[in-house]
């Protein structure tokens, strides 16, 4: 296997993992506040179509990412109102958000179906890009790839080193106690849901602006759900989200590995395409097998509605 090939595989793995990191970290923060939002797939879809539309008409990719973020936040508000203010079942609300978001994206995106964009230009980081193999794979990347690393650091710092992060975790672990000492539980959960929506929107924007540069209905293809699985896989720890995302990214570009191996494998492409989904199931099994591990690490109030003053 040539070094160049190794570089391109690494590059593609990072590209495939990036939307999962961004959406996964967003969902992680949401879940840390005790809210299980299963609507990531819908939020990513809506973010993607909004970003694509803006990129298509303005050619301004920064604006496009902002549009994706805004759209993700806007649609996450539907979930927040139903699940937080109206205390509806969070699983059902998340499903509703996924169905609605995917449908809305397909509807709005119909006129843009199969249009394509010029892929965003990569940004090279001086000096680091010169490192053999790793340089071209990691440091001549798209802006949002760097963003995903900064986001990881920011989320880890926020959750474990800042006071607001401590409050957010308190809300997720013991909402009644947090409420009793005067923290606005529902408002904090709203913010956490909005953050999750924003990040899912950015992840969707990454998909259409940098990853495939085109819009096709159903192109998110379960990445939102995989991001949710990733949070479980990471046992709610930010750094492990990154590790897991690259593992899944590797599964998604399995096709490249097969070519790289040089072996004439006669495997139908659909089998290779099903790898990320099967891998998701496998890691869920491996992680969940240890019941106490899940119980100790998941936020204690995850999925439970909170009604002040009861």
């Amino acid at each position, binding site marked *: 296997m040539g070094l160049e090939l190794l570089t391109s595989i690494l590059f593609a793995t990072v590209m495939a993992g990036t939307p999962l990191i961004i959406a996964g970290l967003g969902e992680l923060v949401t879940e840390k506040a005790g809210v299980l939002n299963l609507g990531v797939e819908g939020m990513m879809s809506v973010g993607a179509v909004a970003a694509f539309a803006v990129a298509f008409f303005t050619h301004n990719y920064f604006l496009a990412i902002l549009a994706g973020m805004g759209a993700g936040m806007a649609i996450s508000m539907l979930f927040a109102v139903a699940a937080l203010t109206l205390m509806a079942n969070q699983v059902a609300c998340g499903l509703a958000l996924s169905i609605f978001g995917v*449908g*809305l994206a397909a509807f709005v995106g*119909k006129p843009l179906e199969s249009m394509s964009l010029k892929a965003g230009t990569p940004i090279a980081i001086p000096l680091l890009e010169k490192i053999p193999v790793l340089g071209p794979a990691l440091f001549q990347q798209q802006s949002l790839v760097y963003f995903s690393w900064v986001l990881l650091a920011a989320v880890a710092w926020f959750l474990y080193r800042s006071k607001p992060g401590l409050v957010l975790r308190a809300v997720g672990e013991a909402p009644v106690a947090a409420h009793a000492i005067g923290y606005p539980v529902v408002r904090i959960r709203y913010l956490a849901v909005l953050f999750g929506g924003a990040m899912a929107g950015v992840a969707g924007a990454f998909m259409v602006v940098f990853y495939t540069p085109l819009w096709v209905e159903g192109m998110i293809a379960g990445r939102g759900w995989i991001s949710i699985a990733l949070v479980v896989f990471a046992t709610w720890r930010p750094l492990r989200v990154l590790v897991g995302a690259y593992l899944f990214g590797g599964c998604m570009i399995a096709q490249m590995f097969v070519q790289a191996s040089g072996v004439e494998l006669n495997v139908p492409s659909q*089998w290779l395409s099903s790898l990320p989904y099967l891998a998701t*199931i496998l890691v869920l099994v491996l992680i*969940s*097998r240890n019941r106490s591990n899940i119980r100790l690490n998941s936020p204690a109030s995850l999925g439970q509605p909170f009604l002040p003053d009861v």
Partner: protein
Amino acid sequence: MWLKFEQRTEPSPLMSYLSPAIAVGLMLVSGMALFYVLGRNPFAGFKIFFLNPVKDWYGVSELLLKATPLMLCAVGLSVGFRANVWNIGAEGQFLMGALAAGGVALHFPDSTSPFLLPGMVLAGALGGMAWAAIPAWLRTRFNANEILTSLMLVYVAQLVVSWLVHGPWKDPEGFNFPQTQMFQAKALLPVLVEGNRVNVALFIGMGALLIAWVFMNRSFLGFQMKVAGQAENAGRYAGFSSKRTIWLGMLAGGALAGIAGMSEVAGPVGQITEHISPGYGFAAMIVAFVGRLTPIGIFFSSLLLALLYVGGEQVQQHMQLPSAISNVFQGMLLFFLLASDVFINFRLRRLARRQ
């Protein structure tokens, strides 16, 4: 805030029936607003979406045709949902049922046996159950979340269908289209009225509703499932097996989704293609919720969701809007339902102004 939610001492039964009606009303209002935003006449939109599809008997028969798979999937899902078993992979189980039944049909192209169709129904049920058994086993044995595993298997099922129709099962005389041969006449469900497409699967669906009603309301096992859903700890204390609940919930959903898949390939589609389901497995979740997880409710809500499908096609034809508008309406309906459900357990109270 001058208003706040106050817990009712008992859930309001009136609201639990009224809530779907409110949700439908809100969906209609916002749907008409959507037509207005899109620059279409909202009343014309309403007429084309909701009235045109059922203006003649043929329309009604098409509605029943589309309601059948929804009814089948939803009634199976409702058994699990009642016990808090979140099988959201009915779409995948539907596809696997379709494949299993279709496999039987393709394997016996010349059979004239009267057992061919019953065999296909059985194969469909088994195919769906096999696919549902995976998340059930992973949940009971390894504690893996069935929401995520059952959903991942939807994507896998879609890829299996795609592989088969592009590869081993492709019709050799099909001009390279990704589809199987058309099923032979004996492998197609008989239609009820000549000239319409609605077929005997409708009776299978009604039968499933009846069996589900008896099971949920008149059997001890059904009672255990309800207890498991409404008061998990009470169920455990009474010694009801939670593993059995999960298995039963998943398998019921899988079997009926599989039969629904069979009814599509042996009904209106007549072969296996990549597009046998316009998302029936997902829409069925909405059917189950809107129908309050009760068989009678599911009967009516499956008609409603079928209307959303047919209406979407009409709007595409007559108003040049994408038929994905159906999914937008579906999503809105579920959101409004979940939102108005708050009034089952809570009521609004005016707060006294703070001095």
